[in-house]
């Protein structure tokens, strides 16, 4: 049993206490007086140093603590909660923003799929991928120790960039993981997204970080053409409006101002 100092949300306030983390449960002392059976936990969310635990009966428990303590709590929960869990090798992240991470290594640990996130867990590492950020799941092959091995590739967005992770285990388990992840991310399918080559080029340029003016110059398009394709991407939920810029021209007053400024040598 481990005791850990936390703040627990209780009756619209925060209570300082020491929770007991046991093999199968977490005990919160009075005045909260609650026992959380780990196998009744169905989801876990972390924002900064606040951990929200979701139980089968739909109750939510919020804890605040330092990173070190939350790491221990999360580890115990992730290894015992109600989730799809398998032991495997994973490499995460393996590719970030299109650049292969050359020192990425295979690590042995648990892959835990909860209601809202996929977690990669080792005794010293916890990587959380929100399911809403998953952009692709693929069964593919990757060279491991000189042999081509079957792996599941999970692509997700992080800071607007694409990050890829790989999971390696026996084929039958990989197939189950792939099917499971495909099913829970089915809403993210891009089937039916009918993009022509120009739409695809624009999508790729946007992903690469090009702004509208650069895209216009590169592809020799009018702003109206670009706007039409942006609308298409937005309507397909493939893009969001980041900002709206304006083009202006000067009025007579503005022209007078810059003419005078030029004359007086201030510009």
């Amino acid at each position, binding site marked *: 049993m481990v005791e850990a100092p936390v703040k627990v949300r209780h009756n619209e306030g925060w209570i300082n206490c020491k929770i007991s983390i046991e093999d199968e449960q977490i005990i919160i002392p009075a005045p909260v007086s609650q026992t959380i059976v780990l196998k009744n936990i169905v989801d876990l969310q972390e924002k900064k140093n606040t951990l929200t635990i979701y139980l089968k009966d739909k109750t939510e428990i919020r804890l605040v603590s330092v990173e070190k303590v939350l790491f221990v709590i999360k580890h115990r929960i992730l290894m015992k909660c109600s989730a799809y869990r398998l032991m495997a090798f994973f490499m995460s992240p393996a*590719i*970030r923003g*299109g*650049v292969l991470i050359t020192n990425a290594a295979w690590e042995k640990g648990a892959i835990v799929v909860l209601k809202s996130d996929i977690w990669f867990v080792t005794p010293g590492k916890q990587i959380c991928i929100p399911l809403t950020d998953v952009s692709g799941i693929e069964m593919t092959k990757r060279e491991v120790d000189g042999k081509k091995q079957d792996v599941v590739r999970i692509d997700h967005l992080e800071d607007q960039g*694409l990050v890829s992770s790989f999971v390696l285990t026996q084929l039958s388990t990989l197939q189950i993981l792939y099917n499971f992840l495909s099913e829970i991310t089915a809403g993210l399918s891009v089937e039916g997204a009918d993009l022509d080559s120009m739409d695809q080029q624009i999508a*790729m340029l946007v992903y690469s970080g090009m702004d509208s003016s650069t895209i216009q110059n*590169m592809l020799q398009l009018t702003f109206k053409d670009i706007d039409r394709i942006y609308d298409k991407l937005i309507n397909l939920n493939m893009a969001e409006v980041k900002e709206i810029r304006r083009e202006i021209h000067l009025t007579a007053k503005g022209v007078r101002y810059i003419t005078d400024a030029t004359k007086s040598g201030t510009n």
Partner: protein
Amino acid sequence: MGRILIVDDTMFMRTLLKNILFSGGHEIVGEAADGTEAVAKYQDLKPDLVTMDVVMPKMNGIEALKEIKKMDPGARVVMCTAVGQEQMVKLAIKSGARGYVVKPFQAPKVLDEVKNVLAS
């Protein structure tokens, strides 16, 4: 900042890379659309770095990389390839590539990789 030769068989990717690298302050000294042209241009231009597509007509990127390394063992080449072709990494690294980017890529990541390779 470096003098860079861009090698890719699609004008779209060459233009995209040109924009990205130019925005990072690099000088684009030339472009090539296949491996044969890349080797010839490398000999002519002696760039500080080459971005090299893998799948190209006439001579592919790996073969072009090997030819360039034969001419100049110190050549800095960053390979560019599409998603799903990462198994080419080992082959490219074995053949002397210094870096690797996977399409689609983001400008800051490409610039970081180019900066690292130029510094190596």
